[in-house]
């Protein structure tokens, strides 16, 4: 790793802001978040590294940028259990379960067993009706829209948790139990014959 540099990657903290703004105007943009899921996995599987986390993750950078600009992070170390294997892999499993439920919901809409539910679910508890999609072309299949709602909710909820732990502890506390971080580290460790 070289000493700090300003390059294209260093502006990626803008990405989460752009992402949530685009999704707010048209929920279909939620699909763009798949980059944040696929890229880290591809780097880990093919390259055996965490290049995404280490150089490209807009969310991680955003937490750092917010902290440096507004000084709202306490800077205190987070409780040890956040970086414990049980919590990290437990949270990963929880997240995968939530993602699977989005896929199942999407399938139900695809197969016609369920109707499209137009709301954003925040922190898996609060439903916020959300159909600001004035510009939604009518030929878009309902299941594509359903996945957008589910995925946008997941991205928003995890960002909210990330912001809370950023404020309570250190800027990138979310990274200790971020499902993508845990999953890609596990892939790298397995690939490079390191104990999990």
């Amino acid at each position: 790793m070289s000493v700090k540099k300003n390059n294209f990657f260093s502006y990626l903290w803008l990405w989460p802001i752009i992402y949530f703004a685009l999704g707010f105007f048209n929920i279909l943009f939620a699909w763009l978040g798949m980059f944040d899921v696929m890229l880290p996995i591809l780097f880990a599987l093919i390259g055996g590294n965490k290049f995404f986390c280490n150089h490209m993750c807009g969310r991680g950078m955003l937490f750092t940028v917010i902290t440096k600009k507004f000084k709202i992070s306490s800077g205190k170390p987070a409780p040890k259990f956040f970086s414990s294997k049980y919590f990290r892999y437990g949270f990963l499993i929880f997240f995968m379960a939530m993602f699977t439920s989005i896929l199942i919901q999407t399938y139900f809409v695809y197969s016609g067993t369920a109707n499209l539910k137009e709301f954003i679910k925040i922190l898996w508890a609060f439903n916020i009706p959300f159909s600001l999609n004035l510009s939604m072309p009518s030929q878009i299949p309902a299941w594509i829209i359903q996945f957008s709602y589910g995925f946008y909710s997941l991205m928003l909820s995890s960002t909210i948790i990330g912001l809370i732990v950023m404020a309570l502890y250190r800027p990138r506390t979310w990274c200790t139990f971020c499902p993508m971080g845990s999953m890609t580290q596990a892939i790298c460790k397995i690939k490079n014959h390191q104990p999990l």
Partner: protein
Amino acid sequence: MPSKFYASCNKNICVSCGACAVECPRGAIEIWKGCYAVIDKNICVGCGLCKRICPANCIEFLNRETEEN
């Protein structure tokens, strides 16, 4: 003259997020194959920035003299 202390990462706790590597003014930290941070003690000047940013709080300081002798 090298600093008395240098940073070292506990690789059992490290989550390989890379926050320390971004912070290090000397570029002494590398994330080894996505697994954990490896700090080059010959480059480290013991400034402590990495320790302050590490979300997993897994960086400790070792004394060069007692470690090496």
